[in-house]
Each structure stands twice: as C-alpha cells, then as structure tokens.
C-alpha cells in the first residue's frame, strides 16, 4: 500500500502569508515535519527543517514554538526545543513501536500506536505490552484492518480527559 504523505512539500506552501488561522510558514514547517516522520519514523533536525522551509534557524524555532503553544500541532522537548511529538508520532523510542516492512515508528501512547498504520495506509505490527501487567499485546494491521490481536480483551486506558490533554502533554 502507498502512503498518503505528499512526495514533497510544494512551493505553494512556502509563502509568508496567513490563512485559516495559521501562518503559511507554520503550515509549511508542520508539513515538512510530518512528511519526514512518515518517511523515516524520526523527526527532522532543526537545520533540516530550516533548509527545507527556506528560512532561518531562528524562524524555525519561533514557528515551532507557535505550532506548540497556539495550535497544539506538535510538542517540543522542554530543554532542546527539538520536536518531541508530532502526534501520533514520537521522536524518541517509546513502549509503543509500530513496525512496518521498512520503517519502525514510535507512538506516544497506545492510542497513537494503533493510529499510525491507518494514518500511513501501511501494514504494520504493534508489539506492545500491558502497562499494568507487562503481558504481551501484539497487534497486526493489514489492508486497513486489525487482523491479529493477542489480547482480545485488552483495553486502551485514557487517564486524562481530552479537554486536559495539553495541560501537560508529556504526562498525557
């Protein structure tokens, strides 16, 4: 199956205008980050974002801060200000790997992990473990369906209500 990720970021998105409540630069950089995550499973460096976005490093840092604070479009690492989460993708390994034929992705949580195969239209396996018991919970996704679930009675536990997701996104 093919992904739905744009093959490249179009020049049409490199403007400096303001549409739909977001600056064009923010929209462009967000798309660059997601394209990179979808292709590689990892976040691009701030330098790569600047190069692909045809802007300066300070502009990247300001734009990413806006994307986090104003739009909740991604979350930045508290100290480095690198991209930490572009939901459902995690920039750092987590207990929720999503393994495809060519790339391993990381979900921020169980919910994010099961969302990644659909988002990318990819077949994938999610070898997770129960957060409470440690028991294996292996899921397999093929052609847009769950085809295997070793824990048919397993649940995904939301601790934080949606209206509080961004109060502390790391905890959420």
């Amino acid at each position, binding site marked *: 199956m093919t992904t739905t*990720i744009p093959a490249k970021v179009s020049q049409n998105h490199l403007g400096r205008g303001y549409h739909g409540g977001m600056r064009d630069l923010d929209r462009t950089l967000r798309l660059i980050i997601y394209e990179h995550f979808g292709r590689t499973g990892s976040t691009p460096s701030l330098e790569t974002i600047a190069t692909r976005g045809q802007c300066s490093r300070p502009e990247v840092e300001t734009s990413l801060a806006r994307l986090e604070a104003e739009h909740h479009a991604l979350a930045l690492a508290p100290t480095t200000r690198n991209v930490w989460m572009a939901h459902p993708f995690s920039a750092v390994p987590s207990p929720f790997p999503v393994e495809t034929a060519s790339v391993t992705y990381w979900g921020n949580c169980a919910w994010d992990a099961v969302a990644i195969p659909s*988002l990318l239209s990819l077949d994938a396996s999610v070898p997770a473990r129960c957060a409470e018991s440690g028991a294996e919970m292996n899921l397999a996704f093929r052609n847009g369906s769950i085809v295997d679930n070793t824990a048919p009675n397993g649940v995904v536990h939301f601790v934080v209500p949606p209206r509080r997701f961004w109060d502390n996104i790391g905890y959420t």
Partner: protein
Amino acid sequence: MPISTAWELGKLWYQDRLTPEWTPKTTETMRAIFEAVGLTGEFWRVH
C-alpha cells in the same frame, strides 16, 4: 476502551494530519468524533 474503539478513534482523530490543510480541531469537531465512536459522558466533554 476496547482496542478496536481506540483504533476507530485514531482513524478519525488523525485523518487530516498529513494534509497541508490541517488546522486545529474545533470543539464541535472533537465532540462529533467522540460521539461517532460512542464516547460520551463527562470524561469526554470537551469544554
């Protein structure tokens, strides 16, 4: 929630994430997504 519900919720929640047109979800959109997968009640109240 069952894993199948989380999977359905994820499909709806993230379906526009890779598009250039993505914008933050409105309260109404969030509520509609939760209701579409049967998530109602105080915990899922969005404001």
